[in-house]
């Protein structure tokens, strides 16, 4: 096919990587089909964002990392990013593959699976086959299709029925070689009545050329399960971050998302909760800080099918320099979802006259017996608040900082792991202090 030659991947390289990892037949087939789709499908259509002008081709090739057994052996750049304390269960991926893992015995005794994706496809092939690319589908658009075709690394989480995982499962994804592919896949399956928190950190360091990070997160929350997902991204200017995250939330289950978008480059962040079951609920909290000329397209979406399902979404963006943020909040209530309730708030704080911010709240409601609310604002630092703080002796700069941190606080303070919360604060600081 002629279109395939335009794609940033080809059958041979994908098959070679799959074989090297010992991937099962079904996965290789899925990848081949996805590659074909990628040749036919369009890029996703984003609100007011010309994604076609972004760097969309620099995928790199699959490069296995150098596994280590001791934390001390990790490269300095990686060590700096490790949680200082409360490490608990941790998987470290460098470029295309995991290089380190420390997971306590406790987990396997409980029957919990927490492993890197390359291991999962070999050891848990059947379980994986049921869910892999079932929540986010290759057929959606070129980005999801390409992801399915080329993704390497990521993690698989499986929590059996009624099991509570005490400590958060943590992961660190780091890229320091732009020639290596960096498109992890994260799959979390929480069986009925289980409870788990997953926290990760996606970082680049010392890249010498451009790179695409095309990641997918899939969460399956079975009846009455609770899944908390928190992530902080800090990818360099040269990295295009394409992150598609989606959860299926069954009866009385709950999914919470906390996202800190601290990238320096362009970013498409699309996070959806599908409230399938009656009484299901979701919560989205997102912050981003735009700097330089980066373009952000941030979407949170809750789709209500279940009766009495509830959703809450908050996005807060602080925009500096000439950055642009298109912030979309979509509450969709399907026919039959009686008693559903959805709330959303998008707020954009503009710190520079050249920055652009757009808050687009959308309520799409096909059922009468529901309640839904939205609030959106794009504004500057409130002059009266500034005056009030300054009237106590606080300088204008410091007062502005306090107001900005206050604006972001509802999300920062929710990060379930203290070391990551501190890191997020530090990165907010870095982006605001530039």
């Amino acid at each position, binding site marked *: 096919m002629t279109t395939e030659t335009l794609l940033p991947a080809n059958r041979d390289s994908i098959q070679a990587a799959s074989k090297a990892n010992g991937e099962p037949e079904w996965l290789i087939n899925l990848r081949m089909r996805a590659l074909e789709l990628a040749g036919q499908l369009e890029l996703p259509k984003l609100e007011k964002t010309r994604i076609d002008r972004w760097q969309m081709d620099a995928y790199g090739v699959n490069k296995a990392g150098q596994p280590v057994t001791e934390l001390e052996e990790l490269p300095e750049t990686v060590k700096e990013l490790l949680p200082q304390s409360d490490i608990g269960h941790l998987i470290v991926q460098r470029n295309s593959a995991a290089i380190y893992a420390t997971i306590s015995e406790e987990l396997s005794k409980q029957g919990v699976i927490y492993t890197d994706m390359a291991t999962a496809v070999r050891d848990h092939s059947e379980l994986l086959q049921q869910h892999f690319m079932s929540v986010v589908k290759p057929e959606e658009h070129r980005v999801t299709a390409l992801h399915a075709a080329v993704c390497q690394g990521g993690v698989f989480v499986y929590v059996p029925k009624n099991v509570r995982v005490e400590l958060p499962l943590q992961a660190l994804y780091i890229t320091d070689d732009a020639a290596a592919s960096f498109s992890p896949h994260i799959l979390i399956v929480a069986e009925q009545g289980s409870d788990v928190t997953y926290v990760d950190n996606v970082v680049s360091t010392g890249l010498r050329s451009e790179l695409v990070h095309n990641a997918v997160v899939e969460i399956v929350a079975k009846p009455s399960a609770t899944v908390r997902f928190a992530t902080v991204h800090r990818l360099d200017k040269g990295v295009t971050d394409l992150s598609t995250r989606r959860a299926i939330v069954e009866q009385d289950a709950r999914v919470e998302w906390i996202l800190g978008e601290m990238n320096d480059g362009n970013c498409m962040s699309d996070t959806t909760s599908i409230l399938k079951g009656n009484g299901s609920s979701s919560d989205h909290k997102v912050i981003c800080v735009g700097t330089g000329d980066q373009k952000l397209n941030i979407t949170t979406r809750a789709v209500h099918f279940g009766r009495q399902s509830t959703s809450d979404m908050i996005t807060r963006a602080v925009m500096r320099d000439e950055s642009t943020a298109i912030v979309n909040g979509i509450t969709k209530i399907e026919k039959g979802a009686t008693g559903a309730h959805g709330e959303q708030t998008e707020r954009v704080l503009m710190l520079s006259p050249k920055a652009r911010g757009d808050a687009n709240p959308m309520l799409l409601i096909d059922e009468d017996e529901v309640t839904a609310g939205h609030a959106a604002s794009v504004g500057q630092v409130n002059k009266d608040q500034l005056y009030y703080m300054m009237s106590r*002796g606080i300088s204008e700069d410091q007062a502005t900082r306090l107001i900005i941190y206050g604006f972001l606080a509802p999300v920062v303070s929710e990060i379930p792991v203290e070391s990551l919360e501190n890191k997020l604060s530090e990165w907010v600081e870095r982006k605001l202090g530039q």
Partner: protein
Amino acid sequence: MSNVQFTIQGLKAQVEGKEILKGVDIEIKGGEIHAIMGPNGTGKSTLASAVMGHPVYEVTDGSITLNGEDVLEMEVDERARAGLFLAMQYPSEIAGVTNADFLRSAINARRSEGDEISLIKFIRQMEGSMNKLSIDPQFMHRYLNEGFSGGEKKRNEILQMAMLDPKICILDEIDSGLDIDALKIVADGVNEMRSEERGFLIITHYQRLLNYISPDFVHVMMQGRIVRSGGPELAQRLENDGYEWLKEELGIEDETVGQETEEFQMPMNTTAPKY
């Protein structure tokens, strides 16, 4: 002799092109309590805001000095660090910034880098002050004024004043929205801060507060000017008799300022109805 001397001379100020203050003179020394009384809309809050440097109020004439230093030359935060404090009629609410973080920043703004107040010392000090003002210690970690009742906001202003140790305290309608118990607490807080090193300017349109904080001087403001000054007996008279007698004496009909009563004007070029 006190070493606090605060002087306002011939102060004129406008907002959105409307002149509100039409020449105000006040002199406050350390140890003195001055009260400014006057009905609503006479320019009292404008005076307080102009002194503090709110950007909406443009000073067009006159001078303000604190111990000889030109206050009008200073930015808002510099005025505060020089020793001015304004307990506002309508304090702002700031989500995401805790009361404690805010106050600590304000205290540290007065100290040099490397000499910041230790967290433990700060917390003790704040707890002590909150206790005196009967403020629930939980309020330390609440977001600044967010969701506070009117009375809670006022007490929070006094808390800040107590902790920032200013030289000149301006209290704008600190008594409004307070029940009698809260009023006493606030008055006690103010009385405790009375010292030779500090002067007060208390703005109110009720005499009630002055039963608990006895002023040395009372000024009445109307039409953007101080129209009468006296001692505590002036406040008493206003309490008993209201403002009408004074307006009559001064020949003032409308005591407010900047609220042009729209006079009905015959539209020009009308033609009489034809029968």
